[in-house]
């Protein structure tokens, strides 16, 4: 940590010279391939232009923005409350985390604190969402590397989480579970039983995923040493989340700057050593187990009390600005909100983890093979809705 950048910063920048000089008769080894935006393994509408020497990647350039909806511009024309559902549409596989970050940021700006029970509910749902996000990642990542079966196993188990969401707030994916100041809905009858049943149900399933992959020879060969990134490169490129932790940096915002009720719980931050795809896989698998630990503690200790703080009907935060970030499943998700004292935010800036992490793609795949590009895109765990906003 705190290492000086040893490389030339320009080496981090990918910039392909796409105009090819006239090729000679035999000199056509270099191939420019356009991967995406419609490609089964780019997880959405990501377009990666690859420059190949045979199968070896000489450089990449990402073209993004196909899913750009101007969320930040929309925010300036909505009230604080009205904007809340929009954030769910960014990282749609971890919508609860997005909502949590936004609600907490506005609460801070209003100088309101959510009541403890609300915070516990938030933690439970957010961690469930982290599990769902990691399961989705695992399934699609394994599918990219060619293992079809884990996809169906993870989707089967993710369904249980989505059922809890549906029972809690009526929506499965874009939940809009939290409101500024707390939660709108009290937990339904049997919520705690459902969650407890789920945390007993999942550990054997995680073992099952691991049984399919962790010691699978081909899986290990495909992921070990692939897409390596060192801790100092991660920090220089602003990479956060499991990718950073797999490189050996023990940093998690839930511990470093606790929010919601995370300071009450006991959990570990799994870290890897080598920063390759296999380590990132192991880190995420362990994170799933730690999430279960947090949920178990939260469910056992959930306090009684109100779930909504006193928040004015018309929110007019005082003039000022705030940056608040949380540990989303993909990394640091930050909201920078500027208030001019009116009902509408003057500016909302979202600091998306996927967007920043995707920058590391070029560094991670340069000199590797085409098949590794797929593995690395999968292991970065990007959601294009969040990259493009």
């Amino acid at each position, binding site marked *: 940590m705190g290492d000086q950048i040893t490389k030339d910063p320009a080496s981090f920048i990918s910039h392909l010279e796409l105009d090819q000089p006239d*090729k*000679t*008769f*035999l000199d*056509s*080894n270099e191939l420019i391939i356009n991967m995406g935006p419609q490609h089964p393994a780019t997880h959405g509408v990501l377009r990666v232009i690859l420059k190949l020497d045979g199968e070896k990647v000489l450089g990449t350039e990402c073209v993004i923005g196909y899913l750009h909806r101007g969320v930040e511009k929309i925010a300036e024309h909505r009230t604080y409350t009205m904007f809340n559902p929009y954030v769910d549409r960014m990282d749609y596989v971890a919508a609860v985390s997005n909502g949590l970050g936004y609600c907490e940021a506005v609460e801070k700006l209003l100088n309101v604190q959510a009541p403890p029970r609300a915070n516990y509910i938030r933690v439970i749902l957010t961690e469930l969402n982290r599990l769902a996000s990691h399961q989705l990642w695992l399934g699609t990542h394994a599918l990219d590397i060619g293992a079809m079966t884990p996809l169906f196993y993870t989707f089967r188990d993710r369904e249980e989480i989505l059922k809890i969401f549906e029972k809690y707030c009526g929506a499965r994916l874009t939940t809009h579970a939290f409101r500024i100041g707390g939660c709108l809905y009290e937990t339904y009858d049997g919520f705690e039983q459902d969650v407890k049943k789920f945390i007993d149900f999942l550990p054997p399933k995680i073992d099952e995923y691991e049984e399919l992959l962790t010691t699978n020879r081909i899986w290990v060969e495909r992921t070990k040493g692939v897409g390596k990134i060192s801790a100092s490169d991660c920090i220089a490129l602003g990479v956060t989340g499991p990718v950073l932790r797999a490189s050996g940096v023990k940093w998690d915002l839930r511990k470093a700057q606790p929010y919601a009720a995370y300071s009450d719980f006991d959990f570990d931050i799994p870290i890897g050593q080598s920063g390759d795809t296999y380590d990132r896989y192991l880190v995420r698998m362990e994170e799933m187990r730690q999430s279960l630990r947090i949920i178990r503690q939260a469910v056992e200790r959930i306090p009684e009390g109100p779930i909504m703080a006193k928040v004015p009907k018309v929110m007019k935060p005082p003039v000022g600005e705030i940056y608040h970030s949380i540990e989303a499943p993909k990394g640091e998700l930050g909201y920078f909100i500027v208030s001019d004292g009116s009902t509408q935010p003057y500016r909302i800036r979202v600091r998306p983890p996927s967007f920043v992490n995707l920058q590391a793609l070029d560094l991670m795949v340069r000199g590797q093979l085409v098949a590794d590009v797929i593995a690395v895109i999968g292991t970065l765990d990007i959601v294009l809705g969040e990259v493009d906003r």
Partner: protein
Amino acid sequence: MQPVATTFFFYFLSGITLISGILVITRKNAVHSALALILGLLAQAGLYLMLYAPFVAGVQIILYAGGIMVLFLFVIMLVNLERAQKEEQFNKQWLVGLLAAVALGGLLMTVYLKGSTLFTEHIAQPVENSNTQQIGVMLYGNYMFAFEIASLLLLVAIIGAVVMAKKRI
């Protein structure tokens, strides 16, 4: 097995060989040339079968049509074809080539016309069933040394190719 319609198949296969041979040199597109060559080789394999040499026919298919020609295609595909198509198809030696072809054709014609008198009438007794064994005995018995020399030559070629192709070893 009794041969069926021998004459027909002989002319059929020979015709295919000839036509594909012509196509090989006249097609501008190198891939088409290669495909014509494959067809020619397959027809040749058929001719070998008619000569009761099934082993040779099999090897012809495996090695030439299945192996070497795939490598040919492999190279051709990587080469920039648009450029190749624009280039002149007949180079400056075409006159010499024509003369050589005429000379060779003349030789063949002579042999064909005078063959019956020069060579005595002799039809080799086809040994269909032990054909493969006999080739094995010949290669690894009588012509062992020549066989090994040939394989050594190939080894040298392989090493040379690796050295030339690989930038650093």
